[in-house]
């Protein structure tokens, strides 16, 4: 089978992986043990495999691994830093925004991308940002509140 080398940065670490030209990024990440990237539909409809590609949330099931060449990927495994949870992760836990947790990783990354470029979003903007991350357990209310809460605290400490 033909393979190629993929050079990219994953959660801050430069890496080189052997991949197949037709491999999907979702499959490669999971094959390499990044199980936080979830397989929910493989059609770009549910958002469970959301990752940050150069800071933008994308569905890893809709991207060839080869397209990550030279780019920076953040998965949910990379959201916490040095054992310190991201404020969004803390807020999701403290506000009960997580139930089964299958969609949480993707939702957290979508929320992180939002706050990175829009630190003080409106509720409508939060709903829009989370709109591609389907959840069947929670009804989204607590996740929306958690994101707004993190944004408000950041504003308060400015």
């Amino acid at each position, binding site marked *: 089978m033909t393979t190629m080398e993929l050079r990219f940065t994953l959660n801050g670490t430069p890496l080189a992986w052997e991949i197949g030209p037709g491999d999907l990024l979702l499959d490669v990440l999971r*094959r390499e*043990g*990044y*199980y*936080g*990237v*979830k*397989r*929910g*539909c*493989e*059609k770009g*409809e*549910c958002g*469970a495999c959301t990752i940050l590609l150069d800071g933008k949330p994308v569905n890893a099931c809709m991207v060839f691994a080869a397209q990550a060449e030279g780019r920076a990927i953040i*998965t*949910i*495994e990379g*959201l*916490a830093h040095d054992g310190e*949870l991201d404020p969004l*992760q803390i807020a*999701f*836990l*403290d*506000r*009960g925004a*997580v*139930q*089964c*947790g*299958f*969609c*949480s*990783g993707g939702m*957290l990354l979508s929320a992180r991308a939002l706050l990175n470029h829009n630190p003080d979003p409106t509720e409508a903007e*939060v*709903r*829009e940002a*989370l*709109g*591609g*991350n*389907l*959840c*069947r*357990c*929670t*009804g*989204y*209310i*607590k*996740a*929306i509140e958690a994101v707004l809460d993190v944004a408000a605290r950041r504003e308060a400490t400015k």
Partner: protein
Amino acid sequence: MIGANVRKVDGVKLVTGGAAFTDDINLPGLLYGKILPSPHAHARIKRIDTARAKALPGVHAVLTYKDVPRVPHTTAGQAWPEPSPYDTYLLDSKLRFVGDRVAAVAAETRAIAERAIELIEVDYEVLPAVLDMEQAMADGAPVIHDEPDAKNIHDAAHNIAGYILRQIGDVDQGFLESDYIFEREFRTGRQQHTPLEPHVTICWLDPDGRLVIRSSTQVPYHCRRQVAMILQIPVSQVHVIKPRIGGGFGGKQEMLLEDITAALTLAARRPVKTEYTREEEFYMARSRHPQILRMKMGVKRDGTIVASHLKVISTTGAYGSHATTVQGNTGSKVLPLYRAPNIRFECHVVYTNAPVAGAFRGYGCPQGFFAQESLVDEISHELGMDPVEFRRKNMIRLGDVDKLSAQLGEGKEGLPRVIRSCGLPECLDRGAQAIGWSTKKRGLGMACSMQGSGIAGIDWASAFLKMNEDGSFYLQVGASDVGAGADTVLSQIAAETLGVTLDKIIITSGDTDITPFDVGAYASSTTIISGGAVKKAAEKVRTQVLGLASKMLDTPADQLTWANNSVCANGKSVTMSEIALQALYREKFQIMDGASHFNTDSPPPFCATFAEVEVDTETGQVHVLHLASAVDLGKAVNPMQAEGQVEGAVTQGLGYALTEELLLDEAGHPRNANFMDYKIFSAKDMPKLTTILVETHEPLGPYGAKSVSEVPINGVAPAIANAIFNATGIRITKLPIHPEDLVTPPLGGQKVTPPSGGRSVTPPSGGRRN
């Protein structure tokens, strides 16, 4: 600890992407399993040739009905002996719906497995299919289960999987005594669970040759028993592990992929993973039973309900998983909400060549409450009574005995249900206040509902605790946290009972080799039944702890208090860790104990749901603006988690009411098996939700808890339907509600004149409450 909004005990690994779910492992030599689904709704395999598939390099097993034991069973994950008919086979020569199993393969990669499936040659004898449940019952309809070895089918020749008739009082006499009789027919759609994690199972043989099944299941113990029976191996040779589950909602109260994955593993002697794609999950897993409900109620002029008659036809699809029990609930959990002295419930559960229905949050109640609460709203309106006041007048109350539950148990006679806690009046008050019931002028509607907390006399659970040197406790429960937070709630109950902090409880759940028996996560049973077992076990262990502390503190045990990881008396104290060290190294004694628990009653949680809607009369578009749910759940062990259960149930109810329906074409093929065409609510679509926890104390529950996860789904559709009537004057009789239903009013039901000369009321002009 009880009543505290603590974080989920498994939360950190979930928000950091920890390898927690079934598919989050990589086994050496893992094969990929794939099922060949039937392309026909009804067919017989005339010839099947697997030679080319087997010859494909990388293929390690190909199975057809010729290769596996033929053991009639049900896939329903229910307590043995299951009340569902034994009408299903691991693989069969007859195929009964599009998606039924034709064959299965295990290969080194997914691509090879998919290719191998294509290489299986099958000649089908296509049989006439029947998809309409009323046609399926008629004489001359194609017989779906003509196999002679199926068991417990009510009337296979007429495709009737199950039949129920139960009566309280004399319903005919009741209608004679009624001043007004109202009757209407309702229809409900086929909703799919769509857990974000589709079904997935990984099987392997451990070094001792025992079969290990790691699976996304709500019922590890039932699964172990079923797989052992189907594959004809001893239960002792099966080990089921339930890791974190990505949502179940009843869809995983099924032994669905475990048997075929295990069969492939035994055939290939290699680990095998089988998973549904999202598309397969829609039509090869389970869905909510579509029903036709004919609801008739007789009332006195003053609004007293005298008689209530519900006649249901339901389709279970091709197999009767949960057939009579789901439909039994449509009667037994719905009709007794009102104190009518005369009640009749009649139901036919019918096979069709459609995807299989099963357990789904609410378990027959969302259908029943849609009919009952819509009709009750209509009656209130016609009598000129406020719908809230009408319900207040008629609803079940503290001290009542629900006799229908005594007749209608889990597939057999049940036990009478005594109402020992009832917060429904407060639910009505607070829900009405939240929605602005008496002040706002908009489309407002409401509904009441109830459910159960475990299956009376059947559901039971056990728990085991043992103490460690640092004063922590291992808690082992058979209960299956499916994402709803059971591990957290059960840990809270243990911590409260033992007087320790939550970090001192290390829970293991749902592993048949390690944890004691539990029927599993269904029927709103976990908090009350599994929680009851945990509390009992913790009390027994506490007695051992206090016995030792009594010696160490030289104080009688009944004078000791326990809290914050210590036991105290008269200003002296000893830590749990000191007690454990004393036990383990001086007394040579493991502090440990277990307990089992069941209830002979199923205390109902209650809910009042209020909806505010806006309807575009030009397009028929319904916008739900606000949904308020007031839920009597007994004591809320973890209010934050309980609110999450309500919000999640309400969101599924919104979909059931407005957007979700798995559609089939005339040949039985799914038309919308994806998230683009089958619409579940997203963050963008959510209306304002208000969740009100109305706490009561249930004597049968641990620390007063009942249940919460199912009941809030029941009232959403009727509350929205009633709000739409309030806004437009149009009665909704079909779910999901389509915009076209509101632009061209459908021909609805009608009031009938009772034979006694009672009269039906003239609809008041306007048809609006406000």
